[in-house]
C-alpha cells in the first residue's frame, strides 16, 4: 500500500468558519436552511440595466457588521465600504472570531482570497455610480491587501482565480502555505457579488436559467428540465492551521482539510470537456491525497450548477473517479438552494460539507423532480437525508476548464 501525501504531513484543520450568503449568515443559520431545503433564489429589482423585465438571483439581503475590534471599523465606516469588500470582510472577520485566533501574539497569518473578477466588478460599480475608473490610469492595490491590513494579518496575502473554483483553490494554496511553514495559520475563502453586467454576460452566453416565472424553482441541478444556473452572491472564509497548533491552544477543530486535487481540461474557455478524465483525475487525486478509498467517501457535494452540459460531464467524472463505490455514495448540489456564487461557490460548498459532517445529514438537491438519465447518481432530492458523514468531497469546476476537488474529514 502506498502512503498518500497527507499521511506524510501533519493534518491541516479548519478551526474557524464565517459565511454571508443567500441562505443566511453564520454557520448554524446556514446549516438549518440547507437541511430544510430552503431556497435563497428570488426576484430582484431589475434596475436600469436588467437583461429581462423579470430578473432573479440569489442575493445577500444583509451583511453583518463585524465587531469593531476585529477590523477596526465602526458601523458607519463599515457601511461606507464597497459591497465586495463588505462581503469579504464580514465573513473573514467572523472566521477569525470563530477560531479565536490571537492576532497580537506574533502569529504569522496569511490570507488567500479566491476572487475572479475584482477589477471587473470595481470598474463596473464605479461606472454605474458615474465614475470613470475603467477608462483612467489608476493602479490601486487590490482588495486582498486592504483586507489583510484591516484584519491585522501579517503574513503573505494573495488573490487567486480559477473562475468558479477560485475559493477552492484559495483553500488549497492556504493549506500548502501551512505545510511549507510559511505561515502559522491562514485565512482562506472567497466571495462574489451580483452586478448587472455579470448577469447580462452570463445570460448572453446562454448559461443562465430563464425561468423568470418561478425563481425559486429555476435552479435545478441534475434535473432533466434544467436550463442553466442562477446567479448568486456571498462569501465564505475559513481559518486553517496545523492540528497540533489548534490542539495546543484548545481550539475547536471543525474538520480536517484532508485532500486536494487539481487539474485542467485544456479544451475550451467556456464549455466543460465531455471527456470526464481530467475532472475525474482531480477527484481521484483529492481522495488519494486524503488517504481514503472511494468507498470511504460518505458524501459528494457536486459542483452541478444546473447547466445542461456541465451536470452530465460532472456525473460522468464522479462515476469514473469513484467507480463501483459510486452508487452507495449520496451526491447533492446545494446550488439548487444557494444559486451559484461564482468565486465564492467552492468555499460555500465546503461549508455545506462541514454541515453534513457536523449534523450527520446530507443537504438535498432541491427542484430535482426528474433526474436526468445521463446523470445517474445516488441523488438526495428535495429532502435532507440523515447519514453518517465522516468524509465529504466537494467538486468545483470553472471556465477555462479548471477542476478542483476538496476532501474534508471529521476531526
Amino acid at each position, binding site marked *: 500500500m502506498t502512503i498518500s501525501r497527507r499521511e506524510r504531513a501533519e493534518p491541516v484543520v479548519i478551526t474557524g468558519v464565517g459565511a454571508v450568503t443567500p441562505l443566511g449568515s453564520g454557520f448554524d443559520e446556514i446549516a438549518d436552511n440547507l437541511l430544510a431545503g430552503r431556497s435563497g433564489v428570488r426576484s430582484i429589482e431589475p434596475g436600469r440595466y436588467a437583461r429581462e423585465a423579470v430578473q432573479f438571483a440569489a442575493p445577500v439581503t444583509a451583511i453583518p457588521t463585524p465587531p469593531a475590534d476585529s477590523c477596526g471599523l465602526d458601523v458607519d465606516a463599515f457601511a461606507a465600504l464597497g459591497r465586495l469588500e463588505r462581503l469579504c470582510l464580514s465573513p473573514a472577520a467572523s472566521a477569525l472570531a470563530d477560531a479565536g485566533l490571537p492576532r497580537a501574539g506574533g502569529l504569522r497569518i496569511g490570507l488567500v482570497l479566491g476572487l*475572479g473578477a475584482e477589477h471587473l466588478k470595481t470598474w463596473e460599480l464605479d461606472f454605474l455610480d458615474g465614475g470613470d475608473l475603467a477608462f483612467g490610469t489608476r493602479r490601486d492595490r*487590490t482588495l486582498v491587501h486592504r483586507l489583510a491590513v484591516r484584519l491585522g494579518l501579517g503574513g503573505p496575502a494573495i488573490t487567486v482565480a*480559477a473562475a468558479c473554483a477560485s475559493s477552492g*483553490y484559495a483553500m488549497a494554496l492556504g493549506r500548502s502555505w501551512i505545510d511549507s511553514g510559511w*505561515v502559522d495559520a491562514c485565512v482562506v475563502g472567497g466571495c462574489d457579488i451580483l452586478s448587472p*453586467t455579470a448577469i447580462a454576460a452570463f445570460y448572453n452566453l446562454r448559461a443562465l436559467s430563464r425561468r423568470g416565472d418561478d425563481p425559486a424553482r429555476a435552479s435545478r441541478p441534475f434535473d432533466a428540465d434544467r436550463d442553466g444556473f442562477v446567479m448568486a452572491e456571498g462569501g465564505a472564509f475559513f481559518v486553517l492551521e496545523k492540528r497540533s497548533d489548534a490542539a495546543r491552544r484548545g481550539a475547536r477543530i471543525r474538520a480536517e482539510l484532508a485532500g486536494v486535487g487539481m487539474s485542467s481540461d485544456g479544451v*475550451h474557455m467556456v464549455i466543460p470537456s465531455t471527456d470526464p478524465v481530467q475532472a475525474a483525475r482531480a477527484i481521484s487525486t483529492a481522495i488519494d491525497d486524503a488517504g481514503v478509498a472511494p468507498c470511504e467517501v460518505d458524501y459528494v457535494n457536486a459542483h452541478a450548477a444546473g447547466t445542461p452540459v456541465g451536470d452530465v460531464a460532472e456525473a460522468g467524472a464522479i462515476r469514473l473517479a469513484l467507480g463501483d463505490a459510486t452508487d452507495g455514495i449520496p451526491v447533492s448540489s446545494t446550488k439548487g438552494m444557494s444559486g451559484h456564487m461564482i468565486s465564492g461557490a467552492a468555499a460555500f460548498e465546503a461549508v455545506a460539507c462541514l454541515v453534513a459532517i457536523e449534523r450527520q445529514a446530507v443537504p438535498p438537491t432541491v427542484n430535482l423532480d426528474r433526474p436526468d438519465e445521463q446523470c445517474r447518481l445516488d441523488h438526495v432530492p428535495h429532502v435532507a437525508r440523515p447519514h453518517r458523514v465522516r468524509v465529504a468531497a466537494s467538486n468545483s469546476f470553472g471556465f477555462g476548464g479548471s477542476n478542483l476537488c476538496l476532501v474534508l474529514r471529521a476531526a
Partner: protein
Amino acid sequence: MTCILESPRPAAIAAAIMGHAYVETAASTLATLRDAPSPSGAPALPARFLRHADEHTVVAMRSVLEAIAAGAAVSANDRVAIVAAPCQSGRVLAARSLAQLAVGGAVTVSPHLVPQASLHSVAGAVSVAFGWHGPHLGVGGGPDALAEGLIAAATLLAAGSGCDAAWLIATDWQTEPSLDADGGPTGDPVCRSLAIALVPAAVAGARPMLVLDPAAPAVDHASTIDLATLARAITSMASAGEAEPWCAECPWGGTLTLVPAARAANIPFLRASA
C-alpha cells in the same frame, strides 16, 4: 535593496529557471500578433484562437511561445502548473462593454467578457491553447501581481502540491493607458509579458534560481517588482553569466532573490519536491 546572499530559512523555496522570454508589444501591433502569435520554431495555435482574447492574453501567449521556441526545458504533462499574474487585465474589454451597456443596454454586453477578461483568463487560455492538464491559476490582478504570482508558483512547486514544474506568466501595460469613450487605448501603449518556466531547484542542474523566502521579516515600504527589471536580470544571468545575485522585497515582507547558476550550487538548501 542591498542583496546579501545568505543561507535561506528552512521555509524558503528555490526554483530553477528552465527558460524564459520577455515580450513588449505596442497596441498598434497587437492585431498582427493576435492573428499570428507563433514565432518560428514554436507550436501553432488553433486558427483564430486569440480572436476574442484580451491584450494581456495575446502578449502572454507570445511570451510562452517564444520561451518554448527558445527551448524552455519543461515537458508538458499533467503535473505542470500555469500561474498567470496579470496587472489589470481585461480593462479594454471591460471599458468597451461598459460603454456599450450605457448606450445599448444589457443585450449588448459581450458573452466573452467573463471568460476573456477575468483574472483566470490568461492562465485558462494558455492551458486550452496547449491542451495542458496541470492546474492553472490567475493570481494578483493589481500592481503586486508579479510578487503574488511568484508565491503562487512557489506554492505549487512545494513538496506535496503534486506539480513538477510551473509556468509563471506576468503581464502588464508598461504604463497604464487611458481609454477613450469607446474603450479603446489612447496613444500607443506597450503591453508586456514575462514567461518563466520553473522547476524545483533540487531536480535541476546548474541553472539560475529564484529563491523565495515568504517568511522574511516584513518591511514598511516594499516597492513593486517591475517585470522588465526582473526580465533583464534573468536574461543577464542566463546569457551573460552575470555573477551577482539580484534581490527584491515582496509586499508582505518576503524576499525574492535571483541567484546566478554559478553560485546556486553552493547554497546549502532547500526543499525538494519529489
